[in-house]
């Protein structure tokens, strides 16, 4: 059920600092709650999001159970060249998810 909504400015000048906004769809299960059958739900959260752009990791957030369900993250990056910002998420249990967003630099 993972999904993400990534927002970038339509274009940016070289060297300009742009804001990157990311909204994620994920329940971020904290674990330990009742599963309704006498057991407990295991923890299952997105524990990391990285963003890579123009040859380097430009942002990383390590997330624990104190991050909200369907979390929002925003950060900045300096526009270097036209290219994809590649987002990768790591979920408890090892699953990964990827999305890309293109930054157009003029």
């Amino acid at each position, binding site marked *: *059920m993972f*999904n993400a*909504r990534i*927002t970038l400015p339509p274009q940016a000048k070289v060297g300009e600092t742009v804001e990157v*906004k990311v*909204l994620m*769809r994920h*329940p*971020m299960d904290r674990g330990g709650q009742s599963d309704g059958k006498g057991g407990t739900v295991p923890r299952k959260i997105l524990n990391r999001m990285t963003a890579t752009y123009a040859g380097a990791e430009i942002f990383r957030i390590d997330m624990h159970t104190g991050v*909200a*369900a*369907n979390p*929002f993250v925003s950060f900045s990056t300096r526009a270097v060249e036209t290219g994809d910002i590649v987002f990768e998420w790591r979920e408890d249990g090892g699953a990964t998810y990827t999305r890309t967003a293109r930054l157009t630099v003029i």
Partner: protein
Amino acid sequence: MRLPLLLIGLFVALAPAGAEEIASGSSFLSPEMRRQQDDPNRNPAWFWVDQGKELFAQKPATGQACLGCHADPATSLRGAAVRYPQVDGASGKLLNLEGRIEQCRVERQQQPAFGYESAELLSLTTYLASLSRGQPMSVRTDGPAQAYYEAGKAFYERRQGQLNLSCKQCHDGLVGQKLRGDTISYGAGTGYPAYRLEWNSVGSLHRRLRACSLGVRASQFDYGSPEYLALELYLAGRAKGLPGETPAMRR
């Protein structure tokens, strides 16, 4: 002596004729939360809209995709959701939007029902309701719907539960006052299905009503029960003219 009379005169002049004016749940949100609700990059409910839009175009194992009959839904189904609940012509039963989607799914697509509050039904309902965003609530409360509307009104006005409270006592009589940490709204329901912080998810109006029932320590009725359907019609009739707000955010 004359001041009170003057005030009464003013009140009469300002009071809307006939039905009382009510405001939607959005007007009881903090400015920050309202901004979040209105920003598709911040309001998680749009994920449910996206999922519903995908499902709408997806061909099931048998029959057509929803899109097969309802082409160009952004136009053809604009304003459809704000006319629910409505009485089904064939069966004479009151159907809300969820009920109509399930009916299409079972009778036309020959598929097993999704089930109330399933991710699929919630997504489709949220998507269809989002197509009526800004359209005035316009359910019929007369003709065949009148008996259902009256039943819903009676439910709304009846004292219930261990707290012995009716919906009306708070949602008409104490609007704007504080109940624990929250502000009492009119209970208009025009933003549902809505993303509630309490749920960390999108949920239906009936899920919200179940929480209300629990809140006054009264019996919770089933999803899609006749009681909640009639109440949903009454609330929608009471909110006539207010814009549809799905996908809204609520506390």
